């Protein structure tokens, strides 16, 4: 009887272990793929991963980043970026990145634009965990990187985790 019980328990445990391992194996690739852009990392790591060692110039003359000075609710923060660019096939804005320095996943979004967009513009509602800098980084078709950043004060954080 005792032995029977033991065996059952062992079998159950083993099965459970196998199940857990299987779900881990199945779960990880999906998560990794989904998290390719946004990872739990510091903003320095994120910048390095996205742009390597390429120099990032100050883009204050060209980029207009619109954000509230104080975000009362970090769960919904409107942000918009417009870049002064001719948007021709030869010279256009290729990517606009939004990076929130203090978020646990710093990369918020990457917008890929085609010259047909007519104007380099994007707007979105984002989440901010706490007060900190929000950057807009623009990659032009010739590979130049431009950045502007602004500090936002957040009264109630909106990132949960």
């Amino acid at each position: 009887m005792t032995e029977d019980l033991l065996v059952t328990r062992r079998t159950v445990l083993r099965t459970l272990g196998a199940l857990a391992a299987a779900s881990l194996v199945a779960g990880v690739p999906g998560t990794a793929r989904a998290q390719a852009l946004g990872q739990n990392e510091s903003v320095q790591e994120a910048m390095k991963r996205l742009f390597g060692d390429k120099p990032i110039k100050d883009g204050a003359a060209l980029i207009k980043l619109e954000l509230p000075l104080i975000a009362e609710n970090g769960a919904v923060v409107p942000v918009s970026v417009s870049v002064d660019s001719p948007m021709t096939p030869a010279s256009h804005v290729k990517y606009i990145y939004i990076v929130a320095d203090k978020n646990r996943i710093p990369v918020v979004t990457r917008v890929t634009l085609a010259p047909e967009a007519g104007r380099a513009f994007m707007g979105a509602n984002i989440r901010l965990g706490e007060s900190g800098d929000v950057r807009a980084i623009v990659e032009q078709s010739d590979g130049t990187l431009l950045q502007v950043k602004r500090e936002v004060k957040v009264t109630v954080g909106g990132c949960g985790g």
Partner: protein
Amino acid sequence: MSDIGKVRLRVPTSIKPGDVVQVRSLVIHPMERIERDAQGKIIQKNYNYINKVIVTYLGKAVATFDTTQNVAENPFFSFTFRATDPGQLKVQFLDTTGGRYEGTVEITFS
């Protein structure tokens, strides 16, 4: 919850050929945040959030948003496109569970 995937698109009422038009789009979606257990460790699971938004006009991609969980619930995006010919503007939202929600609007000139 049954509203998940409802897409709303807003374009200006009067568009002239060659105009650069600003469009606002919204989708009803929970955009699940990262959850942590009591020890502060991230719970590994497939979070349901939108990770791609594709805007096409006349069948060509105009703008693509790759998004992470840092985008607010019921995400709102705006973008522009140059209206050259009458035709269809389509916005597709893809989430991490394979959901695909789309909204279309016919661009006509008045």
